[in-house]
């Protein structure tokens, strides 16, 4: 497989999953995927069999934040023009005239919901000014 073919495959996946900022305002992944100790992940795995995680080098498991947000029923959630993207829940979106504070408010709601359900704190990847 050529590198051009790999890049084309990556681009096709990204286009299918991520919103185009020219169409709908967003900053890509809003949250980082959190890392948790393996023991904590194993306990969560017993309760939520679909939980998605990848082992790190240091005995930690990186958990897919998008999956957790989706499990909280927040995929596609909107308030005013601010919301969670309806395909990739890791992305917050501006449907038109949302203010930065409204997006920030949504991000706090998402963080609280994830923490209450999974006991895991997720933090923004985006720089908040």
């Amino acid at each position, binding site marked *: 497989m050529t590198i051009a073919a790999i*890049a084309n495959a990556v681009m096709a996946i990204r286009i299918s999953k991520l919103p185009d900022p020219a169409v709908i305002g967003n*900053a890509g992944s809003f949250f980082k995927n959190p890392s948790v100790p393996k023991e904590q992940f194993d306990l969560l795995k017993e309760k939520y069999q679909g939980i998605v995680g990848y082992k790190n080098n240091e005995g930690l498991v990186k958990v897919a934040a998008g999956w957790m947000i989706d499990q909280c029923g927040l995929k596609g959630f909107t308030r005013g023009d601010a919301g969670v993207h309806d395909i990739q829940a890791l992305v917050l979106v501006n449907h038109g005239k949302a203010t930065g*504070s409204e997006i*920030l408010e949504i991000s706090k709601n998402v963080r609280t919901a994830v923490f209450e359900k999974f006991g895991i704190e997720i933090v923004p990847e985006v*720089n*908040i000014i």
Partner: protein
Amino acid sequence: MQILENISLKSLNSFGIEASARYFSQFKTIEELQGILNWSKLKGLNPMILGGGSNVLFTKNYDGLILKNELIGIEKVKDDDAFVYLKAGGGVVWHDFVMYCIKNNLSGIENLALIPGCVGASPMQNIGAYGVEVKDCFYELTAMDKQTSCMYKFTNSECEFGYRESVLNTSIKTDLL
């Protein structure tokens, strides 16, 4: 050097948030950047650098100086048996850099195609996708101190890359090697 006042940032952030900058300027050369920083220092402003505006959420107007990095250009520095070393300006659009590598049949960052933002921001948070991170192909960068205009080099290990992390969250990037 041109300093603009009360500029809307709506078209400069990918969230499309309406916010304004008290002062705004852009630089195409390192000399231009130094001139702007000298002016900024006299005014006692805290400059903030903006690349593609694709990883920022403005929750209020910015009561300072926003600097847009327009350092562009990609050049080959050297090559050896294993690697080709490229140097790119911090203002180069990241995806354009990826496409440049592909066109020249240089492998390494093809998995990072279509990530929004600029080359200058890529090591700041060690961008990554599909199992590859910038740190895997990164050699070194040159950064400028916002206060002193001194330039510093950071090697791969000096960047202390982690997951969406590096030591670089306070320096202004100028260009990357």
